[in-house]
């Protein structure tokens, strides 16, 4: 059979012509972008919006790390996925890589269906020039921070909830790292999550756009135009702020003392399979007293919740998550440690 005629691909110069004509990028900048490798950790809302922009901009290689599968509730804000992906429950990393192939066949997308953990993150980041945070929890962000500071690798933090979001580029050794700004992580079960407080798609686009711009400035070496602070946005109250007053902490455990608590899994939550029960226990990596009533109120928007003086139980997506006063949770309906960890991060929050 004869080969079907292929649609003519625009040549490279034409493809990126509008981006190249933007003086701050230019031909030299484009050459750097095309030769670069970017790691996107987490490919939900922020990750997929960032991957979309990176692929269109012609980044040479994108490493996409996510262990979850596309669900119908993702489509409202996760721009790379469509109904077919959700129906087929495709791993997000794979669906994103497929989408990259359709958007720009010159970009090499490397999907990795996994959680970024203390055991694999350094390998994942090998060869990347910049890392984009697409995660939904602080535990993984601190892990990225540890790994990037250790490897001297720039990364761009981003987070969204409701109609608000924030973003910040971190140049290890030069600008404040995540632990300079938040030295200790919030206790598990205290922060709201998108599953409980909701999130709108527009804030995702905005924060991902900032992350993309900061990442591209890093890739082309234009450090002078980096934000140098924590950019925060609220699309509903119209508050936009670039907070630049953060200094590098002289005694920052991470970037000053080089103590990598998350990389060495000192502060990391732990998962244990419960023998024969199709259940996994997730324990926070730190001592904790939870306000169960408050947690119960927060979870009530996410699914059926029951509360007793000793526990809060949430039924969601065919799983039952029982949270106890010390922050541990028993996730029933799965024997998979990663699924349990992901549900814990999404509903209890780490």
């Amino acid at each position, binding site marked *: 059979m004869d080969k079907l005629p292929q649609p003519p691909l625009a040549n490279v110069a034409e493809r990126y012509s509008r981006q190249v004509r933007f003086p701050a990028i230019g031909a030299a900048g484009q050459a750097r972008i095309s030769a670069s490798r970017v790691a996107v950790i987490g490919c939900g809302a922020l990750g997929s919006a960032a991957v979309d922009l990176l692929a269109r901009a012609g980044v040479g290689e994108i490493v996409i790390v996510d262990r979850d599968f596309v669900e119908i509730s993702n489509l409202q804000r996760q721009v790379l996925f469509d109904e077919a992906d959700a129906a087929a429950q495709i791993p997000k990393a794979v669906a994103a890589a497929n989408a990259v192939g359709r958007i720009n066949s010159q970009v090499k997308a490397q999907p990795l269906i996994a959680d970024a953990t203390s055991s694999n993150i350094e390998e994942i980041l090998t060869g990347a020039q910049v890392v984009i945070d697409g995660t939904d929890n602080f535990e993984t962000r601190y892990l990225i921070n540890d790994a990037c500071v250790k490897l001297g690798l720039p990364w761009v933090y981003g987070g969204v909830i409701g109609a608000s979001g924030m973003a910040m580029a971190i140049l290890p050794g030069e600008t404040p790292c995540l632990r300079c700004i938040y030295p200790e992580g919030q206790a598990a079960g205290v922060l709201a999550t998108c599953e409980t407080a909701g999130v709108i798609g527009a804030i995702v686009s905005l924060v991902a756009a900032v992350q993309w711009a900061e990442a591209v400035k890093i890739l082309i070496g234009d450090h002078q135009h980096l934000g140098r602070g924590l950019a925060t946005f609220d699309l509903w109250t119209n508050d936009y702020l670039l907070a630049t007053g953060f200094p590098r902490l002289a005694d920052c455990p991470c970037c000053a003392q080089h103590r990598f608590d998350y990389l060495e899994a000192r502060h990391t939550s732990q998962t244990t399979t419960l023998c*024969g029960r199709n259940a996994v226990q997730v324990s926070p990596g730190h001592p904790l007293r939870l306000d169960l009533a408050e947690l119960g109120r927060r979870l009530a928007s996410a699914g059926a919740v029951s509360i007793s003086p000793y526990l809060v139980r949430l039924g969601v997506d065919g799983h039952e998550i029982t949270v106890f006063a010390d922050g541990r949770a028993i996730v029933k309906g799965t024997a998979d440690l990663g699924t349990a960890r992901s549900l814990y991060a999404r509903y209890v929050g780490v």
Partner: protein
Amino acid sequence: MIYLDNAATSYPKAPGVAAAMVNALTQAGGNPGRSGHAMAVAAQGVVDATRRRLAALLGAPDPARIAFTCNATDAINQALFGLLRPSERVITSRMEHNALARPLAELAGRGVAVDSVAAAPDGSIDLDDLARALRVSPARLVAMAHASNVTGCILPAREVAQLAHRHGALLLLDAAQTAGVLPLDVAEMEIDLLALTGHKGLLGPPGTGALYVASGIKLTPSRFGGTGIQSEDEQMPEELPERLEAGTLNSVGLAGLGAALRFLSERGVAAVRAHEMALTGRLLAGLKDIPGLCIHGIADPVRQVATVSISLRGWEPIDLAAVLDSSFGIAVRAGLHCAPAAHRTLGTFPSGTVRLSAGCFTTEDEIEQTLRALDQLAQTPT
């Protein structure tokens, strides 16, 4: 914290265990039985002393008949694979821990005939059933736990040994739950093979265990390698314990075990047993008063060790254990306790039970606090 998980591993360890291990690393750091210098001789001295103390505790006439292993599982594997040959028959029970059940399942796949004696719904084993199984056809071995790690029910080991011997079989006793907890005398009880671990009732560190082999029984080693003696020979030596101890021993762990054995001999296993029996009696009596609470087992402090399995109406065992820990600071274990067959017998498969296991250092007050917590939870089902 109230620690009621001594059936998994004892806590705290006997006084002196940690110091003995530090001393072994810093002062007796040689390889026992391998060299002639002072440190190696010191390490050998530590290992020998532990062996002698263990022999004394077990009533074993000759310490050389005790081979050190990594744990009870290791000892059981050595006993079973070292003794049984294809077409030979072994009789076990439907109450066993996977430490015994899984090696037997493997041996069944290699042509050993494995028969299981059923247990009553309370987990006890009727010796008439065992006698019948022994009469059906000749057996090489009876292999059973001295006490169930789920119900705590004690096997009348002496009677089982005599019954086995009358039918030409040997007895392998899995003493994981009883060594250090029940007075043992292998000679008087006529036990042929006894497997134990160092980190439970013996109050020593994990990574230590032993297999007692009665005189006249010759086992094929399950590991082959250096022994420090008869190095010129291609084959493993005939002598015990070296025949079953290929490779460098865990001299640091054995130093800790030695300290634990010294503590136990000073306190006396009979005193430990009396203490635990009193605690178990109080626990069982209190549990019987809690509405909706079910004790899985014989619920008789005289016929069981300090391990008690329960379930509570309205609570899944894993949730109950998590609440006891997270809201009351009581550490227990929930689930199948690596003994699925036992839970099938008890009718508690697959959810399992919550296991409360007191130990040598558990206090009466801790038992009272546990009873109060369970009583409170009985009134708040999830």
